């Protein structure tokens, strides 16, 4: 079983997001980088599937050279190998990203049996790359998945729907995009971290391609003013709590 998992390097933002002066990107001068929680779960799911069914794991990303940090982090968790589709830094559209990824997947000496994605990227939130890759590769695809079981070459996926679950069955190979909650990702061990440091990353130079979509600029939505005040501790605080409730109209006078 060969499992691939795709991740995207994104800024690790605080509550307030600052844009660069040209409004083209998030100002990352003080920020670290991460992958989305969905993708962390995808990495964990890939590891669990490989542990349960045997096989290999590969993590792929399309991004700048620095995105090797996210690949190393995935390898520190246990992913065996990594492929970096190295760009010169600009954000690629979902369409272009998916095309480049599909091409890289086809070029692998051995095809993937299962490709996992996060449900959506943490920054652009297009919800598209997994679906587009599946389409390009001609594979079945389910999205928003919170449970995977594999038995005898068939994959069963569960998706939350209202108060219940939608259950899908897919033949392998397949593409699945997963949601946070499917599992609780492990932390990288020290040994994993040291192993990742020593494992080389396969680097590919993808061809830039035209896209139907163009980013004009980013806009930060207006902030909600928040205010936190400790009203007191224990019974002494009761009076002030009541006063605040009254002020807010939550209780009658």
């Amino acid at each position, binding site marked *: 079983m060969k499992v691939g998992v795709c991740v995207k390097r994104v800024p690790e*933002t605080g509550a307030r997001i600052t844009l660069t002066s040209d409004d083209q990107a998030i100002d990352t001068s003080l920020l*670290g*980088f991460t992958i989305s929680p969905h993708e962390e779960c995808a990495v964990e799911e890939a590891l669990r599937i490989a542990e349960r069914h045997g096989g290999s794991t590969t993590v792929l990303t399309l991004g700048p050279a620095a995105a090797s*940090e996210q690949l190393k982090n995935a390898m520190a968790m246990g992913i065996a190998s990594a492929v970096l589709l190295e760009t010169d830094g600009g954000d690629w559209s979902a369409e272009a990203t998916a095309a480049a990824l599909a091409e890289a997947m086809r070029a692998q000496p051995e095809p993937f049996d299962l490709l996992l994605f996060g449900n959506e990227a943490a920054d652009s939130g297009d919800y598209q790359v997994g679906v587009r890759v599946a389409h390009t590769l001609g594979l079945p695809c389910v999205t928003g998945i919170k449970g995977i079981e594999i038995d005898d070459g068939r994959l069963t996926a569960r998706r939350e729907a209202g108060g219940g679950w939608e259950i899908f069955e897919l033949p392998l190979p397949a593409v699945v995009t997963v949601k946070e909650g499917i599992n609780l990702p492990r932390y*990288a*061990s*020290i040994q994993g971290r040291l192993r990742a440091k020593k494992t080389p990353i396969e680097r590919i130079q993808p061809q830039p391609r035209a896209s139907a979509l163009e980013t004009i600029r980013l806009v930060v939505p207006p902030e909600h003013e928040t205010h936190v005040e400790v009203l007191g501790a224990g019974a002494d605080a009761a009076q002030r709590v009541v*006063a*605040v409730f009254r002020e*807010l109209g939550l209780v009658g006078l």
Partner: protein
Amino acid sequence: MSTPSLPSAAQVVVVGAGIAGNSIAYHLSRLGWTDLVLLEQGPLPNPGGSTGHASNFIFPVDHSKEMTTLTKDSARQYEELGLATISGGVEVARTKERMEELNRRMSSALSWGEEGCELLTPEQVLEKVPFVDTDVILGGFYTPGVSVVDPLRAGTLMREYAQERGASVFASTEVTGVDVENNHVRRVHTDRGSIDAEAVFVACGIWSPRIARMAGATIPLSPAVHQMISVGPIPLFEATPGEISFPIVRDVDTNMYERQNGSDMEVGSYAHRPILLDADDIPSSEEAALSPTELPFTSEDFDPQLEQALELFPEILTVEGAGIRHAINGLLSLTPDGMPLLGETEVKGLWSVAAIWIKEAPGIAKAVAEWAIEGAPETDLHSADVARFYPHQRTKRHVDARSSEGYNRTYGIVHPMEQWLSNREVRLSPFYARERELDAVFYETAGWERPWWYESNAPLLEEYGERVMPREAEWESRWWSPIINAEHLAMRDRVAMIDISAFAVFDVVGAAALEYLQRMALAEMDVALGRVVYTSILDQNGGFKADLTIMRLDDNVFRIVTGGLDGPRDRKWFEDHLPADGSVALDDVTSAWCTLGLWGPRARDVLESTTSADVSHEGFPFARCRWIDVGPVRVLASRISYVGELGWELYAPMEQGAAMWDAVWEAGQPFGIVPSGIGVYGTTGRIEKGYRLYGAELETEYNVVEADMQRPKVKDADFIGKEAHVRHRDEEPAAILCTLTVDDNTSPSSGKKRYMLGREPILTPDGERIVDRKGRSAYVTSAGSGPSVGKHILMAYLPPAQAAEGNQLLVQYMGDRYPVTVAVKGSRSLFDPENTRVRS
């Protein structure tokens, strides 16, 4: 929602509610400054500063007396709050050199009175820390009193105490400006209004420089990254109750610490490259992903430390299921010399309580509160006084360079004479080019490059042979040369010229100059023109605030000369006491005058051959100063000596210094003049004479009688500290400063001769600590070769029962004990006790 509004005025505003701000608010309130407003830009109880992510442990033993005292007091305060857990701690050694350092820490533990410390074999370390790999260590230094504390909870309790006394606290309130009038702080502006204030305490860690800058003051620190990871869960830890059940380990050779925190092991590092930030580049609480002081982890900086941590703890760190659960680049404050930044800044009423670690914060706050309210802290804080920096030491270049250099020394083996290598050659005397030609070895004092000895004097080694007291052991040979002792002997035999341009020089001028100096100085200042007065400057408690000379140049003109290291602190002390009416002015002329010391039996011969002035003993008596010609230069000659020889300090205008040097050099050739370094001036020459040094023997914790520097009678004029001084004269001193000689320098363990360098404990013949009735232990205040007396000399304050000449005691050094004898009780000189040389 209603929010209490900011008061329009308060006696005190404290900026910052981390451990420093809460502690200072608490201690100020405790001492009566209860009309206090505490401002915090972040939320409470964890405002997002360094306090929130610090590793919270207290290792009390430090080589610095001041820091150990403050840390021990802090540990006591945390314990009183019920927020300390005694865990014990082990510093492990991977190298032989580090084992020596651990021996040295044992000495410091004894000197500063930390109980129960012991050196451990690897097996003994394993008994206490059952998961350590003994193969990689040679031993450990165990401190049973190491504790972990809860600084956020402690801060909350202290803040609440202040609030009960009347303080008000405003979180999420950002300081936007500080108003200063007549160089006195007046008002603090915030995003919620303004507060008039008489005093403002800047206690906001890495943000402190920014607040100080709003007032036009400087708090010279640099925010820097300290990396920390947390690995878990570890089953062994999960099975133990509470936060910590095993001693904290400092793997000092790899600049790391490892401590249990619940089910995790926290691994912190000071090994990675120094990563400095600018205060303005710190994200706000809203912008930061975790908190403003927990920056994104840069794992590649930490990777080498992972391997080292695995070497020491191979089993628990690789246990199934354990992972790196948390990893941060935490911010902390670094200063140019590694010490905190305490006391009043350049702006009156604006106090710095910054660059403080969890381990010392409550103790420091207590001392600073005493300083602010009572005028003087119980613990001497001079080495942490924010006023210690010259302007050039407050530049960004200097702060960044030294902070970077100091960072990797956090757990380093730092020699007492260790030199800074960055940002050198900032202050150069006019003799510098000459000194370089003579192969001077330069050490730095307050930015000045000072010759410590001259390699060109190497031929003297042959002349003096064994008398130079050669050193076998590498530690004492480091930052030292036997040439120092050869220069010393040549000075005693012939004559030496010594660059002492690092002196700080202040002219005091004005109609009330005499009256002012009478009030400042212990010694009588109403002296004849041309007199040079060596005097102590006392604080109100009669402790030593400074130690310096004052020349009377005219009726209303005096010149103060003090040590280069002491210059900025002393200047502040003098300026703070200037009369408000402008009747006295203080002019810092440090950069106008260079100084050459000329001392030795042939000093008069040298001077006579280059001046037309009468420099005979009768014509130019001791403790006089006057203007004379030296070659082509008119210099101010002052006949005093810190090395116990006939001679003069020669003050020349900076730009004529080289000409003065050349004149003295040429005149000295027939008399065998030797250029000599500060090794002679600061150590060998003075210690043979028992001359006291500010910061070593003299500090606020000791008084004039204890130092045996009292004058026959107390002058009539009133002066600061007089009342206390008179009281000290009436009571039996708790300790008396003595000069001791080492009877046998041979190490019982190695057979090598070893030489103490200072701060070692003096013990009874039974090996017991010696403590005076004020609780102060006996330790070596200064140590150095006495080449003319053929002994290694130590100075120490001893209680009266031990301060008897001929009394046999022990000194502990590097794990061995050496016999010492009290050679002199009090201030008499070991060498030339009658002072015939000085007065010849």
